[in-house]
């Protein structure tokens, strides 16, 4: 965090104070001494779907294994300390290092100019390449160019994503982890996955339903990420890597996990390229370039929220009517539905709909799955809102309608529901506004909506604040009219004015 560019603005400075304390104390001290004093080297990595890099031992899930796990141990030993892994979502590793959540990144981080804009990278410890994976029965698609026009899955912020974005013309689907993309490949939602070879070796190779398509290509290097000011830590790590390579410790580790290939011989031939630091980006100053991208994400957010809310409003009504007036068993089922949906996380429900239903032969695209997941989840709370509204209508109203000879349904339709409507407008509006924000969760099933666009732009520009302010402003611009509309509607439905 040595870059002083953004601190010039007092407002942003104040905003950032609670986020990062390190830059406030002048030039940060070298961390190597601190690590040695503490006796522990913390390394950031993502163990979720992280094989063969770092992942829970299938035999003993509380223990982590993987070639990077062994490597971290070997490196720490060279420094005379112990290694401790810190879990961090993969595409947020660089910001995590920036914030001081851990000392180094050791998790298949590619040595690229982009990655070296904000952090320093060590000598390489592994040579990787890109591998196209397809279903066993797919023909062709052996080369990167063949992927044009096809739906292709990649890991968020990976080199594969960068390669395909640069080539263009690919229907790119961005996944938060490696397992999900292969799952969707097998489910037929996408035609290919482009991924780092070690991942493909571990997850795709043993799967009879999948095959490698063509030779691996675009080799590159994995390096360890350290903060730019940690020069002596970097030097110590570089020396350790060189020693581990020379004494064949690396080869031993890589063979153990089945990721050794002749490409690793090239480690010693590595020539660091000079990295030209790009000028730092202020997305606020360059808003005409970034705002349209965010707005395109906002369109998806609005489509999702509006359709999901429409589903929730209608399904919620059906549920509450069944619950209050249906025959015995149906009542019970409606109640169970509400309790189960309310009592389980939306994320799990989305995963079940998106990844679970295909196993029953129901294959929804991400957009439909998102609407269904959000809509059915919110239907439960809407039905509870309605129930509160319906039960707030005095019993005398129902009696008066009955006395006029109205049946149950006529009473509901003409007397109870119209009065309940006004009561439920505030809580339903509240949920609608919450839906705008909750809809960001569908990024886990590859939907690119506003928050996801923000995340992707932020990890490439590192301007979390400028983009964050713009994104927050868009969300606010979406929700505020909804609340104005609700107030207007509520006033319009007032019948107790004198």
């Amino acid at each position, binding site marked *: 965090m040595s870059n002083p560019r953004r601190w010039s603005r007092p407002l942003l400075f104040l905003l950032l104070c609670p986020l990062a304390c390190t830059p406030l104390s002048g030039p940060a001290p070298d961390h190597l001494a601190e690590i040695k004093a503490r006796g522990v080297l913390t390394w950031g990595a993502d163990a979720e779907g992280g094989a063969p890099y770092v992942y829970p031992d299938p035999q003993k899930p509380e223990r982590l294994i993987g070639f990077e796990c062994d490597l971290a141990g070997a490196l720490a030993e060279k420094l005379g300390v112990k290694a401790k892994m810190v879990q961090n979502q993969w595409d947020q590793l660089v910001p995590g290092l920036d914030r001081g959540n851990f000392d180094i990144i050791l998790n298949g981080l590619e040595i690229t100019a982009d990655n070296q804009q904000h952090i320093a990278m060590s000598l390489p410890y592994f040579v990787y390449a890109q591998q196209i994976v397809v279903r066993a029965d797919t023909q062709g698609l052996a080369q990167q160019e063949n992927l044009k026009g096809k739906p292709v899955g990649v890991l968020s912020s990976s080199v594969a994503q960068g390669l395909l974005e640069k080539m263009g013309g690919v229907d790119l689907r961005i996944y938060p982890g490696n397992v999900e993309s292969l799952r969707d490949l097998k489910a037929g939602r996408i035609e290919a996955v482009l991924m780092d070879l070690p991942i493909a070796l571990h997850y795709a190779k043993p799967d009879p339903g999948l095959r490698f398509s063509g030779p691996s290509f675009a080799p590159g290097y994995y390096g360890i990420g350290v903060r730019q000011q940690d020069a002596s830590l970097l030097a110590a790590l570089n020396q350790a890597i060189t020693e581990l390579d020379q004494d064949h410790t690396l080869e031993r580790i890589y063979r153990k996990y089945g990721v050794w290939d002749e490409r690793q011989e090239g480690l010693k031939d590595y020539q660091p390229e000079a990295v030209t630091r790009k000028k730092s980006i202020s997305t606020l100053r360059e808003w005409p370039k970034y705002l349209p991208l965010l707005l395109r994400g906002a369109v998806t957010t609005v489509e999702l929220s509006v359709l999901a809310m429409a589903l929730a409003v209608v399904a919620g009504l059906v549920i509450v009517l069944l619950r209050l007036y249906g025959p015995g068993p149906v009542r019970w089922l409606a109640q169970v539905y509400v309790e189960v949906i309310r009592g389980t996380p939306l994320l799990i429900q989305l995963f079940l709909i998106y990844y679970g239903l295909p196993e029953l032969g129901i294959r929804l695209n991400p957009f439909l799955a998102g609407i269904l997941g959000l809509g059915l989840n919110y239907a439960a709370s809407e039905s509870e809102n309605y129930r509160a509204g319906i039960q707030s209508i*005095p019993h*005398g*109203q129902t*009696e*008066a*309608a*009955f*006395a*006029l*000879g*109205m*049946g149950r349904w*006529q009473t509901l339709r*003409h*007397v109870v529901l*119209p*009065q309940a409507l*006004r009561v439920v407008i505030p809580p339903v509006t509240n949920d609608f506004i919450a839906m705008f924000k909750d809809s960001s969760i569908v990024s886990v099933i590859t939907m690119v909506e506003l928050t996801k666009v923000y995340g992707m732009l932020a990890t490439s520009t590192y301007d979390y604040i400028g983009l964050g302010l713009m994104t927050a402003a868009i969300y606010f611009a979406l929700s505020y009219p909804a609340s104005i509309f609700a107030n207007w509607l509520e006033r319009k*439905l007032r*019948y*107790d*004015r*004198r």
Partner: protein
Amino acid sequence: MIAVEKLVKSYYSTTVLHGVDHAQQRGEAVVLIGPSGCGKSTFLRCLNQLEIADSGRITIGEVTIEGGHSPRSSGEREQQRQLRLRAGMVFQSFNLFPHRTVLQNITQGPIVVKNVPPGQAEELARNLLAKVGLEHKAEFYPAQLSGGQQQRVAIARALAMEPQVMLFDEPTSALDPELRDEVLRVMRRLAEEGMTMIVVTHEMHFAREMADRVLFFDGGLVAESGTPEQIFEHPQHERTREFVRNVTR
């Protein structure tokens, strides 16, 4: 016009009606009096099926319903509806529909239940509003009216269904004294026009002047019945005497 035989109703272990018998001629105005908790309101609510009697038989006009259970078949539900259509109900707390205007409160029943064309229902409603003296309040909402005015609208609403019998359940109890007269005037006029009515009330003046017959309810039974003069001047039973003495003092 009305025949009730051996009507029994209990809530859990408390029996409220102990086999009430009652017969009433067309055009007869009957007033129910009695101490609170004696079952007179329950009796009225059983008549138009807001309460389901445990046993007994209720006949209004040509429709008869046996007590015992809520309607289970569509035939039974239709029978219940037919009985309700013959009995208009006015509640102590008015129970107007707050989200509808005065006019809509009155037209709603005919339009929804009897499929009367809206234009015709509105004409009927305006006539009824004129009858209760509120034709100028047609477009108001209930909350904009006084209690007395609301109760008059409620009477017009019940009349719009063209019932054969009007049931009044303490129609003036929720009203300030100065608002009661306007409601009682409307009821008096109905009685004079020959409407068959059953009125549960504490308004002894009204009972004396308007009732063709007064029933004194006590302990879930009709303890004594007779003309107002008989009940108020020459009560036969000790309990009636005591009650009349208390309320007319």
